[in-house]
């Protein structure tokens, strides 16, 4: 695992295969060097706020440059994670990109209302997915300078 203080992308995705595909797509474009993959919403929140198994990091919190957040996850779903992040003054500036299976999903709209910055439809077509991931990662990591 990469050093925490240089984490650039936090990927919250319960599907191992989807995560692998996303990571491969990012790697292909050299963007997965400082990536952390968590498997559910609870773990995502633990990581960000230094709780649970990430308690050791508490004194040395470093927020990711972008969070790729799947909506449907066990325990705490993406929407709840988004709510907590956007409702907290410490984290509400972190860009959040929603990962969804369908753009028709009613949750997409809700996510925007909650302050999500963008979304990616996970298409069946791998090439399309890789391209979308690449574009977004590129935008959020390189072009979008988060406020300090």
């Amino acid at each position, binding site marked *: 695992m990469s050093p925490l203080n240089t984490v650039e992308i936090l990927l919250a995705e319960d*599907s191992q*295969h*989807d995560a692998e*595909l996303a990571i*491969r797509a990012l790697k292909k474009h050299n963007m997965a060097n400082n990536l952390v993959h968590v498997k559910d919403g609870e773990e995502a929140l633990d990581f960000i706020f230094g709780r649970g198994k990430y308690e050791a990091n508490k004194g040395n919190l470093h927020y990711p440059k972008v969070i790729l957040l799947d909506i*449907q996850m066990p325990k705490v779903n993406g929407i709840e994670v988004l709510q907590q992040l956007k409702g907290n003054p410490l984290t509400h500036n972190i860009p959040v990109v929603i990962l969804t*299976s*369908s753009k*028709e*999903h009613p949750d997409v709209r809700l996510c925007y209302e909650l302050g999500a910055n963008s979304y990616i439809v*996970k*298409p*069946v*077509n*791998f*090439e399309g*997915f890789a391209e979308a991931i690449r574009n977004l990662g590129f935008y959020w990591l390189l072009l979008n300078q988060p406020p300090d």
Partner: protein
Amino acid sequence: MFAIPKPSMTKFSPGRILTIGTVIICGTIAAVFFISYRQSQRVQNTSEWVNHTQEAIQHIQRLVMNALDNETGARGYVISGKDNFLEPLKRSVIHFDEEIRILDSLMKDNPEQLRSLDSMKNIIGRRIHFSDSMVATRKLEALRASIEMVESGVGKRYTDQIRELGLHMEQVEQALLQQRKSANESTIRELNTLLYTLLTAVLLLSIMMVRRIRRDILQREASERRFGALLQAAPDATIISDEQGKIRMVNHQAERLFGYNQKEMIDQPVEILIPASLHTAHGHHRNGFMKKASVRSMGAGLELFAVKKDGQEFPVEISLSPIRTDEGLMVIASVRDISARKALENTLRRTNAELEAFTYSVSHDLRAPLRGIVGFTAILEEEYGDKLDEEGRRIAGVIKSNTLKMGNLIDDLLAFSRLGRQEINKSQVDCTALVKEIIAEMSKAHSEIIIHWNMGILPVVEADPTTLRQVWINLISNAIKYSSKSPSPEIEIGAKLDKGEQIFYIKDNGVGFDNKYRDKLFRVFSRLHSEEEFEGTGVGLALVDKIITRHGGRVWAEGKTGEGACFYFTIPEEVDSR
């Protein structure tokens, strides 16, 4: 109870007959009064004349008597020479003057009698003169001469003349009386005839009126009974209220539905049947309805509630229809308890929501493994492609293309189910511009196929732009797909008016289809060609059918195997957006 006027009954309503009859009877009675008054006037007039005549006769007789007194007085003096005979003589002269004056005034309007009276005056003058001469002669002690004067008979002749003239005047007076009496009597008789005629007419008219009104009342009662029977036979709870919103009639069904008995509802405001929270709104609606009364259902599209005697509220459906009665405008409200239907609707709504959720989860859950298959097959091709032989790479390709196809199928299915819920928002759509744009896009995407396009001017229609666009895309891509294997593909797009209906069509010279399967074309997943021949999911035309149906239009197709197909659809001009 009130009666519904029957339009076809008679031209005079009972009320009108009553008014006309009353006017006629009152007029006749006034005429009778007038005639009676005239009759009594006549009777009085006759008795006045009788008195007048009697008075005249009396005075004529006195005049004659006076002449006798005059004669007797003069003669007595001549014979006796006593002065006491002179007294009646002097009195008679005074009496003559009196009587003549009275008769003058009594007869002033009758020239004949006045002439007789003049003669009378003349003779009386002579009579008085003669008597005075006799008395004068006797006073001169010429007894002989005065006796000769008596014996000459001159005085007697004057007296006789007076008597005769008096008698004549009496007769004239009597005749006049008779004449006047008979004139009055004939007038009275005529008036009597008129009176009896009028009274008989009034009697007949009254009888006719009574019979007519009785008949009307009987008819009205019969109509009320029929109406009451109809009301009771109505399948729904029926409430009739007047313009002020007071309940006037209810049927048994209404008693059962609301839990009140008839007596408790009659004359109460209809608001007793409406939840208190809706009273104000209902008052406004009622006034509005009364101003523009027509048959309609109440509060179309709104949830209506009624309240029972025990306070229980329940959903209802209400139809209103106005009736004009002789007691003013009434409203018949048919009330139906739709609790059961509402419950079913709720169940249906829940089921639909569940189905929707199911569709989404299916689309999600089905897509996730597909992503894995395609993604990892792609990785296999990319990273291990050099370790596979040609057949291995072909198989990897087949896996990918099949999986992508399944992804498309799921997408189409999702689009199809989404359309059932999507709102149709109509606006003006210029079909010519829309179709040209689609053709341009498609030609770019299928640049390998050279198609001869033949397109006319298409009308502007009221439609939902997004879904109508989908219709054209599906039909045009279909036409391209099925004509792509023709030697020279041709597609014709146009519109025509048929019996006032705007029909759009799109015709190709492609593979066509057997006309006997044309109804299967528009069913979901129903295809007339194999996947190997022409790829497709079988959702496109089903989607077209669904969109056009939601616009209130129709869609159909004609075809012949090997000779092309023609698809038609209509967009009605005015469709209720509800």
